[in-house]
């Protein structure tokens, strides 16, 4: 057995025994690469995810809603930071991660390439998009890579308020005027299918799934999580009194699951490959924010360097 084979075998044994892998432990290069790809994509999603909602902070209908939305968007910045920091433990720089986002080399969740057209969309995002994110993220709290799992524990704790505030917005609209209820229904119509797509391609088309399951980066398949999301969310729509836009949706009392209609995978791949309603706008906003912030980063660094020079001079004197 070669050295690498021995290390790989020992690595898999540790995973099988449910041990956590820490940054300085030996790991296969492919495990490191997979994590960098997935974790950075996750971090980018948090950061880009601020854009569709940021649009509504100044347009929130009341001070209470505005405070909640501000706090939610601030959380997302924080989540991006936890995840970038955790990704950096794998030996890649923050600058390089951002560069991959800005050059289009790295992806972020396609859901953020859809526009937020009115206030009901903020409710739908909190309820559906954060709901789907939580469904994906809870199993990640037990991910085999320690820093990722720890970041996810914090994120999941904070995110449950995001989903509840979204549902409350929907609830308020649904209990309001006819027009307000129609807004809620319209938002559900537009966000339902993209939310189901958030779980990624169907298991039979998912390239990374099998290996990620073996490494315990993933604990459930895309289709399993998507099914669970549908089963949990449809009864919530019933409580709101609005309908999920799926003519094929049917409850199977034997399996106690909802059977749902086909997902438009052409649309999914189109948006993933850059041709969604807002891909260009989101990336441009990101790059602009980064470039316009450059003088602030430089000034802070120059100030820090000057201070540290002064301190050395004082010590020498």
């Amino acid at each position, binding site marked *: 057995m070669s050295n690498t084979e021995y290390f790989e075998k020992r690595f898999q044994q540790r995973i099988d025994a449910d041990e956590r892998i820490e940054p300085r432990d030996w790991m296969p290069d492919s495990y490191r690469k997979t994590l960098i790809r997935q974790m950075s994509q996750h971090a980018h999603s948090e950061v880009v995810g601020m854009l569709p909602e940021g649009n509504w902070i100044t347009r929130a209908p009341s001070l209470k809603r505005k405070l909640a939305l501000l706090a939610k968007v601030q959380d997302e910045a*924080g989540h991006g*930071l936890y995840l970038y920091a*955790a990704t*950096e433990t794998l030996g890649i720089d923050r600058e390089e991660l951002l560069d991959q986002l800005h050059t289009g080399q790295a992806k972020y969740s396609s859901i953020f390439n859809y526009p937020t057209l009115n206030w009901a969309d903020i409710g739908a995002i909190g309820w559906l998009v954060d709901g789907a994110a939580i469904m994906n993220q809870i199993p990640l709290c037990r991910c085999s890579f320690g820093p990722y799992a720890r970041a996810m524990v914090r994120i999941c704790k904070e995110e449950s308020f995001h989903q509840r505030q979204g549902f409350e917005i929907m609830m308020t609209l649904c209990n309001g005027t006819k027009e307000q209820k129609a807004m809620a229904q319209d938002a559900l119509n537009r966000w339902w299918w993209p939310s189901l797509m958030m779980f990624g391609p169907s298991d039979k088309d998912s390239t990374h799934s099998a290996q990620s399951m073996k490494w315990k980066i993933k604990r459930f398949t895309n289709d399993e999580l998507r099914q669970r999301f549908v089963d949990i969310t449809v009864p919530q729509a019933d409580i709101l009194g609005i309908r999920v836009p799926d003519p094929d949706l049917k409850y199977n009392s034997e399996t106690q699951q909802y059977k749902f209609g086909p997902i438009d995978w052409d649309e999914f791949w189109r948006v993933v490959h850059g041709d969604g309603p807002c891909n260009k706008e989101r990336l441009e906003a990101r790059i602009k924010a980064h470039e316009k912030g450059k003088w602030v980063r430089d000034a802070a660094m120059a100030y820090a360097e000057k201070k540290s020079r002064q301190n050395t001079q004082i010590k020498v004197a």
Partner: protein
Amino acid sequence: MPQWLMQKKRAGRIHKSKLPEMEKRKWPLYEVFIRSKSGLNHKHVGSLHAADPHMAIQNARDVYTRRQEGISIWVVESKFITASNPEDQDMLFDPAIDKVYRHPTFYNLPDDVKHI
């Protein structure tokens, strides 16, 4: 930096990159430790970038204590931490395994001896 990353960089696969320009003066990495309430020790919670220690404290406050998670913060630049090597784990920690006599339960005393 892992081997594959160096290879990738050498192979120049990063297009339209602004890396060389950004790399010269980047904010260093800090490790953050939070005391959640008085009487408890500071505990490592994660890391972040900042231009100087003062800014690291401010950023740590925003990133790690938005929900009253702490009453005190320590930050230290990551490069100043010396860590044990994971490969030395057996050498360092195995010797403690067979030292059962370091634990109170190793010693047999009659049941009617009290307060000991």
